[in-house]
């Protein structure tokens, strides 16, 4: 009887823990959304931010956030999946693999501020670029790469052995097997992992403070020449992202509507992350359905 009671108490405790975790999230989200949602309007999203007057929006910051994310992903995804393939398929147990695995682990546990400092040293000062989107994206790549490597490695290892063996038995080379058999079936989990990682990149600020800078030049959205300094596509311009904007508005902002702007931006940021998550889930379930249906 006594162990039954203990069991019941323990179950209660675990349920309580689950409730605590959920209520923390619900509390945080409702706080952010309730405080910020009322400031989000089409105007807020489409006007450039102001340095002094009230009524500034977040157009450039929003664009910068997505653009840096895009550049980061263009660099990080091929590298990360390549690394994942290496770890899952080519790496033989031994010293070299051990070293690479340690590198991935070290990279993934590096504090973002350390990555920011490294970025400041290398991408900002040593290269002489100053604060640039590219520097920010490279710093975020360092930050993001281990996540993608791990996700792809796990996904590839989770592909059923029979699939791989059948392909190899047909005399198809390893690389070709990876390209045509393994990667397609590992694709859904890799994609989900990448989208979730994207959410994290989207909200990163500490690494970008030192690499992409705290300001955005005047942008001309009609200018699509990526080499013009006013073009939004130029990767050698400084760019303040949304997360950095929240930080800088709150720290040095002189605009009278600091609270509106930062609450609104926070809400936009959190909603974006929420969308990333929903997207990841949706795509994941869509592809799983497709695959299981064809089976």
């Amino acid at each position: 009887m006594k162990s039954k009671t203990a069991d019941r108490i323990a179950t209660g405790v675990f349920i309580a823990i689950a409730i605590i975790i959920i209520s923390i999230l619900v509390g945080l989200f409702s706080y952010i959304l309730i405080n910020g949602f009322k400031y989000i309007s089409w105007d807020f999203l489409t006007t450039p931010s102001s340095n002094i007057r009230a009524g500034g929006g977040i157009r450039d910051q929003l664009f910068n956030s997505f653009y840096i994310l895009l550049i980061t992903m263009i660099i990080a995804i091929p590298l990360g999946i390549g690394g994942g393939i290496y770890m899952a398929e080519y790496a033989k147990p031994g010293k070299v693999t051990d070293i690479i695995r340690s590198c991935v682990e070290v990279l993934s546990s590096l504090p973002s501020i350390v990555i920011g400092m490294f970025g400041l040293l290398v991408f900002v000062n040593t290269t002489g670029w100053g604060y640039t989107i590219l520097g920010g994206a490279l710093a975020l790549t360092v930050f993001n790469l281990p996540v993608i490597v791990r996700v792809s490695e796990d996904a590839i290892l989770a592909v059923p052995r029979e699939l791989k063996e059948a392909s190899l038995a047909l005399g198809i080379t390893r690389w070709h097997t990876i390209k045509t058999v393994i990667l397609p079936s590992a694709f859904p989990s890799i994609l989900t992992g990448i989208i979730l990682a994207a959410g994290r990149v989207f909200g990163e600020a500490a690494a970008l403070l030192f690499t992409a800078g705290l300001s955005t030049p005047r942008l001309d959205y009609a200018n699509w020449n990526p080499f013009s300094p006013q073009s939004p596509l130029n990767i050698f311009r400084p760019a303040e992202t949304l997360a950095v904007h929240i930080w800088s508005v709150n720290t040095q902002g002189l605009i009278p509507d600091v609270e509106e702007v930062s609450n609104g931006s926070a809400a936009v940021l959190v909603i974006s992350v929420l969308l990333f998550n929903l997207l990841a889930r949706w795509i994941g379930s869509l592809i799983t359905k497709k695959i299981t249906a064809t089976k």
Partner: protein
Amino acid sequence: MKSSKKLGLPTVFAALMVFTAACGGETSSDKTEGKDNTKTEEKQELSGSLSISGSSAMQPLVAAAAEEFMAENPNVDVQVQAGGSGTGLSQVSEGSVQIGNSDVFAEEKEGIPADELVDHKVAVVGMTAAVNPKVGIKDIKKEDLIKVFTGKITNWKELGGADQKIVLVNRPDSSGTRAVFNKFALDGATPAEGITEDSSNTVKKIINETDGAIGYLAFSYFTDDTVTPLAIDGVEPTEENVQSGTFPVWAYEHSYTKGEADGLAKTFLDYMMSDDIQNNLLKEQGYLPVTKMEVERDAEGKQTDK
């Protein structure tokens, strides 16, 4: 207009004309007319790009000036980056930016070849101690202020205020605001430990929320009554008192160039000194026009009449 001697009258005059023409009138007819003038006068000369970096406190001001400057000169691209005074000074002395903004004299920063840099004082910022409104005092003697910040007085009732423990809100060691406040309000005394925040908005928020809190802020943050600015030795922290030199706690905002400013950098700095920027934009942001100062100060902090 005393400082116009330094700048060369013609440039100032040109910049002034251009600017008043472009932005002086609020009516649209005035504006379009002015724009046309600008283009015909300046367009052939002004093009290219200018990068400015430095003090994050100055960034909004310079960026706003740059915005208006670019509106008048569409072929010019001015980038204003923030990274801190140290960063700005480092970058301008390395030559990676043309103008480095700083809220302290270059001489005060270690590792900067101050003799290679030319100082352009573009604005003045006044600051004073601010307390939580519930403390109930509005005036403080300088010696008492020093005692408060060095921890020798720990309760406001010793100064005739409410019976509240004093809570200090400091700035980081390397902050320019802290350097200025320590030098001119505390006469160089080292403040005792307290909460340390870099951001003026956060400092204001903490002072407002914490009973017995005291910190220091630039005048531009005294826009409402959430915090009480203190008069020091009976001198009110007002623009006039700073200008006349009777209120001691103020500092220049500096724009440094490597060697004498030339080309676009010079035009932009002249533009910063134009009456319109000095009297309108600066005021909007809570800075004081450097052109109106009746006293001068050098890197050692010696104050002289102009």
